């Protein structure tokens, strides 16, 4: 792959939820779908082989990797470095070769892969909103000033986020077609509440991958946050908080 930064950004986005992850590598694509340790959030990632300059995979395989460690290595990549990942089946190691002004090869162990396969939640979403990533990031930061959770609601015209803390409150309104809110489709008005620590971690970590993001939700159901990336997908699911 010609740009190590692209890989680093994706690993940053994944590492925010999980320490270890299992990549499924098929002749067509790389997939990863994992829940965070407390099973509140899920990341679903895919990169098709067309993204890579060179992609060889003769038979499907699964490799479990310590994502946190991998991120440490990738952070060493300089601007414009290219990266090459190879799997050493015999030694059960993943080699990461960074090619810049000189060539560095790191190797890291492959861990025992988990057998269980997680499906993604099947939910009928009643609201779909397209927002600039910067816009949603700012809004979440605003809400995080006053509380640890935020309710998101939508009607035909606008998307409203409300945060209610012990002493302070915040309301953030985004009108359709104005500024940050690029598009809004509402089948029926909906409202759900989410933990801000998860939301802000996810959005902060994924913000480097895409300039726009799509959120989908329904009343008291998980929210789906989608970051359109080149030749693949990066999607998060976050379970709601339901009070009383």
């Amino acid at each position, binding site marked *: 792959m010609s740009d190590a930064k692209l890989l680093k950004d994706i690993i940053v986005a994944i590492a925010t939820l999980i320490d270890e992850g299992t990549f499924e590598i098929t002749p067509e694509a790389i997939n990863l779908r994992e*829940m965070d*340790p*407390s*099973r*509140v*959030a*899920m990341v679903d990632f895919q990169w098709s082989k067309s993204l890579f300059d060179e992609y060889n995979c003769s038979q499907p395989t699964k490799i479990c990797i310590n994502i946190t460690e991998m991120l440490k290595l990738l952070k060493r990549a300089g601007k414009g470095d290219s990266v090459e990942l190879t799997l050493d089946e015999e030694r059960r190691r993943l080699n990461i070769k960074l090619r810049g002004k000189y060539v560095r090869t790191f190797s890291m162990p492959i861990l025992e892969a988990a057998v269980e396969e*997680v*499906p993604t*939640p*099947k*939910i*009928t979403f009643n609201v779909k909103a397209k927002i600039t990533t910067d816009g949603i990031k700012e809004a979440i930061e605003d809400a995080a000033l006053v509380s*640890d959770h935020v309710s998101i609601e939508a009607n035909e015209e606008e998307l409203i986020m409300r945060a209610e803390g012990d002493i302070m409150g915040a309301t953030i309104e985004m009108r359709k077609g104005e500024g940050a809110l690029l598009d809004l489709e509402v089948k029926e008005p909906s409202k759900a509440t989410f*933990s801000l*620590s998860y939301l802000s971690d996810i959005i902060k970590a994924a913000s480097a991958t895409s300039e726009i993001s799509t959120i989908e939700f329904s009343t008291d*159901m*998980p929210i789906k946050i989608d970051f359109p990336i080149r030749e693949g997908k990066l999607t998060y*699911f*976050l*379970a*709601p*908080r*339901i*009070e009383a």
Partner: protein
Amino acid sequence: MLIRKVKKKRINRVLNPWIRDLIDDYKVAGDLGVSSNLSVRLGKEVCVVCKGSRLLCGKTRCPLLLRVSYYLKTMPMIRERDLSGSSPPGVFIGRIGYPYVYAGPLVPPINEDTTVFDLPEFWFGKTIDEIVGFRSMLVRGMHRVNVRKPERADKILDLTRDLALSSLCVDVELKFKDRPKKRIVLSDDVQPFGPSALINHMNIDSSKWDRRIEKAYYDGDLKASEAVLYLYDQGVLVSRIQRAFSVGAFGIEKQRRLVPTRWSITAVDSIISNDLIDKIKGYPEINEFRVYESTYLDNRFVVLMVPGKWSYESMEAWYPGTIWNPYSGFTVMLSDWEGYHGRTEYAKIGGCYYSARLAVAEKLAEERRQATVIVLREARPGYIMPVGVWQVRENVRNAMRQRPMKFDSLEEALAWIRGRLHIPLEKWIENSDLLRSLIYQRRITQYLKGLKT
């Protein structure tokens, strides 16, 4: 560095002469057995009105009189400007003026086996009178040193270190610059110990070091945190590790520092529990809801363990009239918590956060299980004065030794807890991040099964 400045709640101290008046009163002075003049610094106006008789502060006994009475028992045993006695061993490193602090030995004016005086692991179950009784016999020798140069200091510091690493009582002789001051500082955040005085000469009998601590001391390439973990693994008592840690006995040779006693306690609790938590994260989750409980010195601890990944919250409620909440009319609740990945800031509730964390982590590591843990503490009016965070560590350790109540659901566990605490459950939930998250936060897994339409 793990060592951070410990922020403690503290009330303003104003000079209040009433207790001197009290002691000057010949009747009271007779009761207390005092004849000499004594100056006292202490807390707020309410004491002036109460004068130890009406318990206006809401405590069940006057902490001031308790301390004064023991103090007055100790004073006559100290003659003139020298003292010889058998140190537990014990040392105290102050924090005022950091990095130039007062360090020195704790020596009682008696020559018998005093080992237990500085080993909180053996204090659990003792009454507050007993603890204050033997603690106030410990005279604190003070010697000003720069914490950055523990190895290049003078003889007094060398001897203090020698003493701190000893595994048995050591006979110590001290010569003071002046007679130990007849002054009681009634600050609420210092654990009780006796009078203190500057020392200008110190001598100790030969000490016998703990073999394991000695090994860590002479290893100049072993990091301080690694030394702590090594010793803990070897079964050395936490309070002994902490004592050696405070005199700068561990660490890379050139980086050794003296660590004020107060900070060293938390540093050691934190280093050990962090290591245990790393292990715990690899273990399977518990599969029932458990409630543990222990009460000591009118501090009730209720510990809730929930199946789930490691996370931890420590909450405390201070009744009106208890140490940290003397003057308000309502109960104050404080909470601090960490998620799976731990925390990066010092917990605002202080050292007890880390002491309780050590106690619960020990239990889970021993069982090779993982859980979400919530520690609830009610400090009730009978807890008249602080005795140190060891109380939290040993109290929670005691809770962990009990057979827990086991439940199948969070609701049942909470219903049980409701009956074990004075403060309504709703108050706890309102103030607890983890409890609210457990009750209100849904899991993704709930949307995977049965909902596939």
